[in-house]
């Protein structure tokens, strides 16, 4: 069945109330009953939650074939937790598991043999790349992977689309009763935002830490009242790969050029007012936008009320210099942001649900004035793909892309027109992650396109030196240089479903033929 964007979702996936995507605000006012976990009451005092090792904890949770387990990605490329837990599960011979991760990357390659032998038969994640991306693209996972945004995952957990049996939560520090935090310890992640929902909605909650501290470990990101077991291991992650040192600000003139134009779009948009809110990513041009923001904030004599999202050092610097009044942090991208989280009273940890869940009573994304996002591909209808490479391989992550894009007043995409001889702006994206109706501006190195429905922005930019072009002109230019991309040939097998943040399916990704 075709969705509103013309993307075909095979009927076999439209069961149990599942629908195709019908527009970004289709489920506004939707009424539902929240999922509730099964809880083992711990009435009797003196019971020890501490177990000696991962195997003991897996056994204690009663994990069985067909269950759902969850993980977070705050430890990023330095994560030891997923592989550590999966090895034990694999050896125990438990099969047919669903892995519900906030994101997966190169630290989680042990999932590949688990996929191949049926230990893992379902995956839901934001990020899907590297070896896992290749394995899933090749159709090795028994069922299609579900690609979820950060807000979509929080929603799926709360509305019961996903029922987590056991949440395995790596935490930088924990006390023996499970009051756990991303702060301190040997593998400091600053925050544990993506596990807030898991801790409250999973039937069993396990804290894995390498730094046990005395009680109470407050402020706690995960509260001991939600935790069944605690296990101490030698190391939960490689601190060098968790948070990079200073993320270098780009010196690439082309990225700076795009960043400046993105900042200019904010400045001239009509929404650049004292107390404004914004989010940028950690990619080169997004990060560089913050440099120019400072200039424009001085020029307009305005300050930012709050900045949100993955927090980075340039954002922390602006915050410390008084340009940003509050930081709302759902993940810390570098050492400076890890250090600042919780340390500064105005640097707040927020949960994934507070950040971006479309089904709560109003997430912070709804209050964003600006968001600056990247794209692997953008099409002439402004649809964006951040999940699938132009060769058909799964190699990206929606993250908060569809969430912030739907919420922000002005959504700006920054992407080079051509990447390694591949056109970024094209007639149709390989698959849709974020619908064009959410995208307002596309900034490329060759010019800036404004979504024609944003007549207010077009009027605001009219007498400025922003190099405006139509999206079709950008597409034509890209094709002039790089040639029109040939369509990739796909098998019929669906290897991943891209779930929009409201639970509808925005696209179905098939196995590329060349992977045969």
């Amino acid at each position, binding site marked *: 069945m075709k969705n509103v964007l013309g993307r075909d979702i095979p009927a076999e996936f439209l069961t149990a109330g599942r629908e195709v995507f019908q527009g970004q605000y289709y489920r506004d006012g939707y009424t539902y009953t929240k999922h509730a976990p099964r809880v083992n009451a711990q009435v009797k005092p003196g019971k020890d939650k501490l177990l000696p090792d991962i195997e003991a904890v897996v056994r204690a949770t009663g994990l069985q074939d067909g269950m759902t387990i969850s993980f977070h990605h705050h430890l990023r490329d330095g994560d030891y937790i997923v592989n550590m837990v999966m090895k034990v599960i694999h050896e125990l011979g438990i099969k047919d598991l669903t892995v519900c991760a906030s994101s997966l990357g190169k630290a989680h390659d042990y999932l590949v043999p688990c996929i191949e032998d049926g230990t893992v038969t379902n995956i839901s994640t934001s990020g899907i790349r590297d070896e896992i991306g290749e394995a899933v693209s090749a159709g090795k996972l028994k069922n299609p992977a579900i690609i979820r945004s950060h807000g979509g995952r929080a929603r799926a957990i709360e509305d019961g689309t996903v029922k987590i049996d056991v949440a395995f939560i790596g935490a930088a520090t924990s006390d023996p009763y499970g009051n756990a935090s991303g702060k301190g310890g040997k593998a400091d992640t600053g925050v544990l935002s993506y596990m807030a929902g898991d801790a409250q909605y999973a039937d069993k909650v396990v804290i894995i830490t390498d730094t046990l501290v005395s009680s109470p470990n407050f402020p706690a990101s995960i509260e001991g009242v939600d935790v069944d077991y605690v296990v101490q291991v030698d190391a939960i992650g490689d601190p060098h790969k968790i948070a990079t040192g200073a993320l270098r600000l780009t010196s690439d*003139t*082309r990225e700076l*050029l795009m960043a*400046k134009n993105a900042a200019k779009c904010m400045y001239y948009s009509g929404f650049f007012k004292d107390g404004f809110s914004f989010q940028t990513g950690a990619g080169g041009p997004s990060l560089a936008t913050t440099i120019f923001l400072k200039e424009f904030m001085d020029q307009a004599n305005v300050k930012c009320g709050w900045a949100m999202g993955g927090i980075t050092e340039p954002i922390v610097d602006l915050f410390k210099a008084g340009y940003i009044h509050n930081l709302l942090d759902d993940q810390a991208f570098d050492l400076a942001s890890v250090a600042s989280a919780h340390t500064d009273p105005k640097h707040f940890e927020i949960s994934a649900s507070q950040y971006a869940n479309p089904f709560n009573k109003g997430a912070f994304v709804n209050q964003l004035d600006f968001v600056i996002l990247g794209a692997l591909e953008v099409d002439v209808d402004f649809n964006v793909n951040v999940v699938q490479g132009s060769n058909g391989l799964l190699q990206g992550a929606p993250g908060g892309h569809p969430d912030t894009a739907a919420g922000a007043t002005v959504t700006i995409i920054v992407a080079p027109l051509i990447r390694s001889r591949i056109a970024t702006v094209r007639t149709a994206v390989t698959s849709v992650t974020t619908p064009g109706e959410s995208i307002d501006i596309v900034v490329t*190195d*060759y010019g800036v396109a404004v979504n024609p429905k944003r007549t207010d922005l077009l009027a605001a930019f009219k007498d*400025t*030196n922003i190099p405006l072009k139509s999206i079709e002109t950008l597409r034509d230019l890209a094709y002039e240089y790089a040639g029109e991309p040939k369509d990739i040939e796909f098998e019929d097998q669906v290897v991943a479903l891209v779930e929009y943040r409201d639970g509808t399916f925005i696209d179905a990704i098939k196995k590329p033929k060349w992977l045969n």
Partner: protein
Amino acid sequence: MTPERLRRTMIFLNTQRAALVKDAFVYQPDCVIFDLEDAVAQREKDAARIQLYHTLKDLDYQGIERWVRINALDSDLFQEDIRAAVAGGAEGIRLPKTETAEDVQMVADLVDQAEVAFNRPVGTTMVMAALESPLAILNAYEIATSSPRLMGIALSAGDYTRTMHAKRTVKGLELFGARSQLLLAARAAGVMAFDTVYTDTDDPQGFIDEVKMIRDLGFDGKSCISPKQIGITHDIFTPDPKEVLHAQHVIQAVQANEAKGVGVLTVDGKMVDIAWVEGAKRTLKLAKAAGSYRGDLV
């Protein structure tokens, strides 16, 4: 007469590098200089020339003026360089190591022939002379008046400091003589004047100081070697809002009083006369190019 326009920045591009020349217009310089000389390895000269022709012919540089730095006259390459540049439709040819008026005239003659050979409108290809030696500086006025094709003269400091036995410094004291002499010659001849490149691309403050200095001296623009230098140069050459306002007042006041036969008047508390109009117009043109003036006085 060569076409009048702003030429605040001229960025050198290594013509050998396809990735670079394919779209350098995105950096919005006023002019680009496709380099066939020093940037191109000896054995790549032919390949670069072919690439130059296709770049000129096939890519839309969106109104940015395209110059070609040909190989020096002591090589056996410059004749073919000129033919490729003219055949491709370059707006101008930059002649390196120009020493005398005859050098320019020889190039102008070859450009004449190439324009005829490739059906280009005769007389439209401009020439710019780079002065790189003490002799060239002493001959600056003769060079600047050598040909109607000559759009401007440019200082090239590398060879100049070497032959002067001078040391290249950040402050540029060693170039004051050459800069001043070159400017005098250019202004006397009515052609444009361009300053040499600033080679330390990691020293933005040094670059800023130098551009401010050459702007104050009276140069029309700066040769650049990095896209980073373009925005900075344009910003420095952009008049501040007060200057723009004053320039508008000068032009409006002079125009309003022209009919009355009043030659000298007071604008914003300062005495001005008709001679101020040219400077005021230059200010407004620079402001217009930077987008800070949108009126129709220029």
